[in-house]
């Protein structure tokens, strides 16, 4: 074990600048106000993050205009976005899309897209958000030559996207294609989503011209890279969710009084929060390990990503549920931000596979076969 699981100095600086920006532009009240909008989130916050802080290209090579950083830095940004429940397409663009495109960066179109991302473009991988790593590429879109047709349901971060990365079947093999989201023949239907801060859409492509990025095994590898990296990074976002929920709950319980005593002084409450904190500390270790493996291209990366998801998905859900419960009535209201985190946590726990599928994947990876 030589991977460093601590936060480095650069990461802490990155965290501080993201947190400051979110404090100014993504306070709970702003997120709550955003729920009344339907469709894609307000692009203003994305522009601030992507352009002003240059975060969209955090993991894009410097030669393409990015920051040349890696998964560890992305993970820290995602922790902060998770804390704020920020409605931005960061995971999809800077995480999944960049990971997919990096595997085929020798293709000029892919390199060009990476450069556009570094410039603030939103790019989404057109797969159902529930797709698990290791599940293979079963495209619902068909490619005829370089023309695509077919549906994809429940795509994340695509409503405001500039470009879509579409896995499509062509004869016996599959390919990964780039499609301009604004092209004629691309229909995006907003889905009423459980997590309103990451609204999904259903996609229908009708005779849409596309540029091929990869074919066959390369395409499968690109999609798998996106899903594995995405799962690893999502764990850090979930960690951020859990951390916000714990912090908010502790803060509330340190002042709320019932029966003449501060509620946080009751032992049953204390023990539940202590257990949650222990689980959160474990979540930090596994999320950091997943990010470090992804950054180092460590052969253990698939195990690390599955482990991180298996632990952090239920962690965030439990933290958010405790947050609602231990806030009492106020936590059950629309006006308190607890529910935003609850919905994000519950939703994220289904994203990119969910804990059950990741445990099953671990079973294969670490040789613990089912009966």
């Amino acid at each position: 074990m030589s991977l460093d699981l601590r936060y480095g100095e650069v990461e802490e600086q990155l965290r501080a600048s993201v947190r400051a920006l979110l404090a100014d532009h993504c306070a709970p009240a702003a997120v709550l106000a955003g729920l009344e909008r339907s469709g894609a989130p307000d692009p203003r916050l994305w522009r601030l993050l992507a352009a002003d802080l240059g975060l969209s290209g955090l993991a894009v090579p410097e030669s393409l205009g990015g920051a040349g950083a890696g998964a560890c830095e992305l993970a820290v940004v995602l922790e902060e976005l998770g804390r704020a429940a920020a409605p931005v397409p960061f995971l999809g663009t800077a995480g999944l899309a960049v990971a997919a495109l990096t595997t085929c960066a020798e293709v000029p179109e892919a390199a060009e897209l990476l450069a556009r991302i570094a410039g603030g473009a939103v790019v989404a991988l057109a797969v159902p958000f529930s797709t698990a790593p290791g599940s293979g590429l079963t495209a619902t879109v068909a490619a005829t030559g370089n023309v695509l047709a077919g549906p994809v349901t429940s795509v994340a971060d695509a409503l405001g996207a500039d470009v879509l990365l579409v896995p499509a079947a062509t004869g016996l093999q599959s390919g990964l294609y780039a499609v301009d989201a604004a092209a004629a023949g691309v229909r995006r239907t907003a889905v009423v989503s459980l997590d309103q801060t990451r609204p999904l859409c259903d996609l229908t492509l009708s005779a849409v011209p596309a540029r091929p990025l990869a074919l066959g095994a390369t395409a499968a590898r690109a999609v798998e890279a996106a899903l594995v990296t995405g799962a690893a990074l999502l764990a850090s976002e979930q960690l951020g969710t859990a951390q916000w929920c714990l912090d908010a709950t502790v803060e509330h319980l340190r002042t709320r009084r019932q029966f003449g005593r501060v509620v946080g002084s009751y032992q049953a409450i204390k023990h539940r929060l202590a257990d949650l904190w222990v689980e959160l500390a474990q979540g930090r270790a596994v999320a950091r390990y997943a990010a470090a493996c992804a950054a180092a291209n460590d052969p253990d990366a698939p195990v690390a990503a599955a482990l991180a998801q298996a632990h952090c998905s239920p962690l965030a859900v439990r933290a958010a549920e405790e947050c609602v419960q231990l806030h009492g009535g106020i936590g059950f209201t629309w006006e308190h931000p607890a529910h935003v985190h609850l919905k994000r946590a519950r939703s994220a726990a289904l994203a990119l596979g969910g804990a059950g599928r990741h445990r099953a994947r671990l079973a294969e990876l670490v040789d613990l076969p089912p009966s």
Partner: protein
Amino acid sequence: MDDTVTDGEVRRRVEEFLAGRPVPAPGDEDGRLAFLRARFDAGLAWVHYPVGLGGLAGPRELQPRADALFAAAGAPDNTPRRIGIGLGMAAPTILRHGTPEQHERFLRPLWTGEQIWCQLFSEPGAGSDLAAVATRAVRDGDGWLVSGQKVWTSMAHRARWGILLARTDADVPKHRGMTYFVCDMHAPGVEVRPLRQLTGEAEFNEVFLTDVRLGDELRLGEVGQGWAVAQTTLMNERVAIGGGPVPREGGLVGLLARTWREHPELRTPALHDELLRLWVRAEAVRLTGVRLRQQLAAGEPGPEGSAVKLSFATLAQQLSSLEVELLGEAGLRHDSWEFSRPDVVDFTGRGATYRYLRARGNSIEGGTSEILRNIIAERVLGLPAEPRVDLDLAWKDLPR
């Protein structure tokens, strides 16, 4: 109790009543009301209530019998779910603590549903610790002036009356300085605002009271005795929440099992065992309820009653959570975030994500699961109470 009121006697009276008064046509609202008033006057509204107040002073168990006979005849009912707070909480409190004038004035329109009731107990600072209510009622001539804020008030926007707990003396310890009132919801100074909950709906309201004038005839029980009067209300609230008998797979577990059976493509081995664990728990909770009802029917109430709401809340949360998990991609989608003001909670008419969200409230509303565990530990197991610092201090001197 009048033991001449037997099953046969109730049947006879219902038949006699129906013979003398035709069932009104559906949609005939005036006819419906007249019918219900007459039924009340005939003592067939709640047979265990006193004669003259809608009852026959008979045994409580005969009421379902009367209801069934009226239902079989196609007679209109008083939409009991819609007026549950009046029937379940206000009525028994008025009956026990009210004056004859109050009985006369409130009970009939309450039962017929002409006047809807709401409950003005909880406040932002008084949730589990209900005795901490800060809404003040001060003497004003021959009446009272009430100011404060109440919360979690279902039906407040439709209610004619509210049962209200207010502080009338801040110089004594908190349990001794409260008085119980009937609040006129049409009085000036009563403002009702919908309280949107995390499902997007507003089942509840906030109620702001600003110098609301209530005559002394709206006081229920003695000044300073509000806590004792409120116990009657709360005891009846817990009884009301118990619910009726359900068949196997009758509740949320049935919805989950149906999804499982109808969607083989969603199944995984891990979810299978999870499903079975919850099926077992659901069936155990159901059989506990069956056993409890058998004991109650035999006049041997067991302490299991305290556990019913606690178990139900946990189970509803776990079942709906597993349902969302099982749905996978579909669990990422919701049915609607439209604002609405439902009169009753509809767990089955909406999707799994709605159930998941709404069920979070089950362990908060009507007594949190934490408070229920305290109650079980102290009253059933006999474990000692926590040290209390708030019982002897004057209300005004309590730390806030």
